[in-house]
């Protein structure tokens, strides 16, 4: 027999109260855990996927849409820009590196991206199997794409139009050939199919522009064919790309380059960092409401624990007096009651964290958040604070009952009738 066992026994004799209180507090903690995990993983994803990209240049339109489509592959592109104009930006003295990309069809909802090998380097991608693409219609699959599609190196597939997984018509005659599969990176690279830009051009040259991506207003602007002076532009056809991912040579470019592009060209420059911050603040409003809800849960749990301990103490005043009769000091009674609150809190914290992680894992597995691969095996340091908060709530709720226990007068209680 010791004081912890005693506290446990006292809780165990009131199973209904105990379970109810643990559940109430655990639900509050689970809700906050859920929010923290979701928020942290969303931020992680947003930041990881825009790492090394200082500026995105694309067709005029919404900056958020430009970033969502060309960095996160979570929206359709605004339109296209002429390769020639993009090349001029790429050669600008403030630009360290520029990666062009032509967004094309999709494979089971995963975007097929025509780009250069630099795009793989940008996310630190490595080949897991096979090799990188070399010529048109060769494709490399991101880790998730390979897993979901089950495609292996050496197999062929046909893309379908747009971002939607089905419904679009398939380019049956033009089959992509899988030449490589990438290792997982935890970035957007896992969720794309990479190919030569030429593949995208080849596929869409043969047909009239039914693809919405290639039927945007920017097209007519470049329709006036320039002279046949570029190697890329065989037979005089102007080449379009969807976006240019830029990293700055110097921090000074932050001020100069976007202004230059937005003012002097027919293109749009947008900063992933700024748009990500804007997106997070929009999401943040929703999260705040959840947070308030969780706070209410935790406060009511604290009150409920208090009421439970307080009423239990009224019934147990004889127990406390007997314990003093048997030689217990006042302080020991104080700790015994406080410990009951703490035990409740620790159980709730453990259960709450487990539920939070479990729900996030479940959401990830069932694909409730497309484009954001959630996992429950993800820990944030604030969870320790959350556990502390729970213990604090338990201790606070037990404080007044514990003080009452401390004040127990043996003789008067024992002779009560």
């Amino acid at each position: 027999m010791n004081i912890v066992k005693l506290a446990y026994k006292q809780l165990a004799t009131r199973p209904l109260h105990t379970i109810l209180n643990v559940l109430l507090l655990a639900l509050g903690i689970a809700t906050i855990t859920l929010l923290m995990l979701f928020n942290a993983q969303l931020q992680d994803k947003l930041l990881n996927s825009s790492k090394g990209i200082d500026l995105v240049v694309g067709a005029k339109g919404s900056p958020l849409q430009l970033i969502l489509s060309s960095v996160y592959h979570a929206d359709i592109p605004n339109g296209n820009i002429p390769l020639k104009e993009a090349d001029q930006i790429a050669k600008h003295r403030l630009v360290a590196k520029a990666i062009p990309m032509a967004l094309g069809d999709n494979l089971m909802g995963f975007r097929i991206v025509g780009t250069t090998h630099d795009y793989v380097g940008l996310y630190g991608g490595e080949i897991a199997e096979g090799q990188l693409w070399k010529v048109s219609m060769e494709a490399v699959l991101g880790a998730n794409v390979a897993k979901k599609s089950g495609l292996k190196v050496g197999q062929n597939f046909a893309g379908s139009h747009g971002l939607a997984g089905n419904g679009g018509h398939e380019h049956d005659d033009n089959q992509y050939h899988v030449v490589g599969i990438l290792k997982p990176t935890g970035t957007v690279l896992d969720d794309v199919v990479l190919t030569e830009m030429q593949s995208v051009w080849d596929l869409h040259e043969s047909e009239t522009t039914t693809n919405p991506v290639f039927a945007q207003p920017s097209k007519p602007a470049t329709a006036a064919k320039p002279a046949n002076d570029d190697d890329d532009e065989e037979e005089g056809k102007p080449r379009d790309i969807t976006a240019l991912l830029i990293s700055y040579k110097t921090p000074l470019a932050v001020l100069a380059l976007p202004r230059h592009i937005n003012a002097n060209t027919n293109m749009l420059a947008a900063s992933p960092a700024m748009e990500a911050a804007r997106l997070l603040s929009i999401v943040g409003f929703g999260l705040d409401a959840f947070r308030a809800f969780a706070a209410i849960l935790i406060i009511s749990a604290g009150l409920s624990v208090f009421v439970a301990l307080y009423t239990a103490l009224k019934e147990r005043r004889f127990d406390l007096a007997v314990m003093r009769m048997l030689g217990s000091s006042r302080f020991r009674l104080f700790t015994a009651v406080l410990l009951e609150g703490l035990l409740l809190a620790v159980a709730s914290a453990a259960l709450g964290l487990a539920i939070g992680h479990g729900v996030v894992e479940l959401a990830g597995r069932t694909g409730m958040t497309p484009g954001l691969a959630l996992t429950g095996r993800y820990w944030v340091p604030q969870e320790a604070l959350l556990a502390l908060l729970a213990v604090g709530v338990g201790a606070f709720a037990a404080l007044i009952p514990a003080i009452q226990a401390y004040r127990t007068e043996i003789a008067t209680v024992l002779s009560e009738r």
Partner: protein
Amino acid sequence: MFALKQLRHRYGGGAEISFPDWVLDAGGHALLVGPSGSGKTTLLSIVGGMLQPTSGQAIVAGQDLRQLSAGALDRFRGQTIGLVPQKLHLIASLTVAENLQLAQYLAHLPKNPQRIHEVLTRLGVAELAQRRPHQLSGGQSQRVAIARAVVNKPKLLLADEPTANLDDDAATAVIDLLEREAGEVGASLLIASHDGRVKSRIGHSFALQRQQAEETA
């Protein structure tokens, strides 16, 4: 075993109860008698170190209780005194055996399951060790309460009205048990009772008078 000197107690606002200068020798058994309200329970509480008297001195097992610090008094109570309260007050959330373990633990004595088994066996309730108090009869509960009072081998065993609500045979049996167990651990025994049946069993008795002030109050 105890010596009282000009001991008086007054409950907040109530009348003062004064106690004669009684002395009980070590190992002695005595009865504390007196009408209801005369202060029997009050005296047991003072001698048991559970109530601070208003004035006067109580020396128990050679120790002047006033001179003990709060912590030392708690320890003294746990290791030197065994009390069987009038309402037995077994702890409902614990089994019979655990109630006795708690007594050892709270008195800062080492765990001793053999001692618990031995005491429960002596009192004939060993097979009830895993039961909870609400699963016991009144007589069984009383035996367990006596077991709890003697498990730490106290020097002074106190019992408050142990025979109230018992028939003649049961009352005799309980007094026998208390005397036997006190003798076994070498404890002095003080039983508070206004039960005439008890008087015939224990020779030595202290008699409290009806309190003068009580009557007029």
